[in-house]
């Protein structure tokens, strides 16, 4: 039985369980409670060209079986990451995948260029950001805008490039195909779902930023459908994200078409869940005599 999975050329995960971006910071805190080398891979907080301050507080609100966040992509910036955080992550025997974003195509290119350094196994592009040059419409909403963005970044970097899709689109398959055609090596499916919360006692939005993104178990059934749809139309690996909290979720997402999964919100409530998810997945595979992750990916019986 082999839990390894090659998620892009040369990027071999020892198991299909990755940390999600934005719920793992740059790995330091989690390293205090378990050995990060146990993870399939680490995806770091999204980076921009310059350090970013993020949105006003409150930035997080708990909902039924989930949470809404409007962190606003606070991060230390790509240069500080490469200098201060990357050496630390290099200690662990697990691929480091760096999530990044920009406010315009040029910023994506510039960040990607600066991430073309040793110690980074792959890049994950967050395309759920407003394109400030195009009236603020998200890059991940229109196939042609996405195609153009991914193509440009593709030509800048030789690292494997993952594109993290927005869930709230007309047809995620169009977006998946656009990203694939533009040269993406894998697709992450998907980001948080736009949402908001209102306090009926104050008549105000709960979040400082008014709206945010919904994550956690509440959205799992939606993410499962998105992965299922995307898997059927592309021929590059799909990485699932949305509500994964147990090894059973992992198996379900693999069956739907994922080659690996990201764990986000669940690890905020329960940082050790990575270990039980990884062990549970291996135990399931052993119990069912499944030799490799490929024997699960997309093997839903219809």
């Amino acid at each position, binding site marked *: 039985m082999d839990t390894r999975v090659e998620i892009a050329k040369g990027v071999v995960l020892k198991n299909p369980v990755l940390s999600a971006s934005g719920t793992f910071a740059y790995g330091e805190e989690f390293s205090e409670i378990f050995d990060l080398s146990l993870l399939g891979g680490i995806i770091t907080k999204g980076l921009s060209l310059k350090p970013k301050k993020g949105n006003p*507080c409150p930035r997080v609100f708990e909902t*039924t079986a989930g949470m809404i966040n409007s962190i606003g992509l*606070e991060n230390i910036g790509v240069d500080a990451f490469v200098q201060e955080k990357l050496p630390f992550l290099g200690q662990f025997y697990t691929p480091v995948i760096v999530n990044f974003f920009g406010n315009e195509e040029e910023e994506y290119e510039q960040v990607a260029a600066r991430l073309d350094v040793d110690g980074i196994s792959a890049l994950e592009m967050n395309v759920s950001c407003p394109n400030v040059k195009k009236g603020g419409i998200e890059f991940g909403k229109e196939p042609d805008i996405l195609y153009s963005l991914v193509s440009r970044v593709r030509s800048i970097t030789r690292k494997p490039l993952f594109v993290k899709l927005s869930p709230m689109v007309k047809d995620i398959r169009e977006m998946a195909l656009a990203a694939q055609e533009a040269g993406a090596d894998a697709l992450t499916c998907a980001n948080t779902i736009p949402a908001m919360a209102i306090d009926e006692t104050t008549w105000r939005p709960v979040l400082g930023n008014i709206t945010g993104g919904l994550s956690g178990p509440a959205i799992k059934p939606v993410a499962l459908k998105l992965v299922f749809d995307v898997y059927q139309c592309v021929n590059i690996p799909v990485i699932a994200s949305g509500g994964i909290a147990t090894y059973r979720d992992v198996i379900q997402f693999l069956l739907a078409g994922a080659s690996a999964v990201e764990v986000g919100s669940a690890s905020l*409530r329960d940082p050790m869940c990575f270990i039980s998810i990884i062990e549970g997945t291996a135990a399931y595979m052993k119990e069912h005599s499944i030799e490799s992750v490929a024997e699960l990916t997309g093997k839903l019986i219809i």
Partner: protein
Amino acid sequence: MKEVRGVVRDNTRVAHDTFLLSLDCDLPVSRPGQFVMLQVACGYEPFLRRPFAILGNQARTLEILYKIKGHGTRLLAEKRTGDNVNVLGPLGKGFSVHDGEETIVYMAGGTGLPPILSLAENLRQGILILGVQSKDQIPLLSRISSLPGVELKLATIDGSCGRMGLATDVLDDVVCNVSGSVKIYACGPKGMLLATSECAKRIGAWCEVSLEEFMSCGFGVCTGCVVETTGGNRRVCREGPVFNAQEILF
């Protein structure tokens, strides 16, 4: 920081809506002002853990003093002896060690009492000013009032006990009467912290405040709990919850 199993030894009401929880639990050594994240539900209601200051952490016993606020604390109050409560901690940075000559003044308001009490029990000196709504809301009164080396001063809004008014009113009196310099530690509502911090500035006292923010992770990975400081955003759960009052942009 470790994730450990806690087993309820005792969970008793000690004042109106306030409970003292004792857990058998192998938490690493902690310092006053640090906190834990408790998993109050088995399922997802609520989804996230809840932060609580460490009142005591000795002889494998973790003490938490908590007030019922909503669903999570209600669930906590339903725990019985022998029930499990998963604990993540110790978290955050505690109060700075005191080794000077100053007179220590502790300011505690509302759910801000536990970290302050923990510090006073540790330092065993100074003046503890506690502000509450009314007398029946003071938990552990005999424990607080018998603290060796610590003088207790009460303020109640309704005047049912101690001075009628706010803890900060008492603070103003106290600082006038102290000879020599003063060091203030405070935890409580934002308004109280602001007033305390201004008083400290006025008299040139060193002042540390422990902040409360909604926390989703509690160990520094989500940046959901940041506060603006003179040095930029700081995570309350990681760089705090205790900060030098003058650094906070209230």
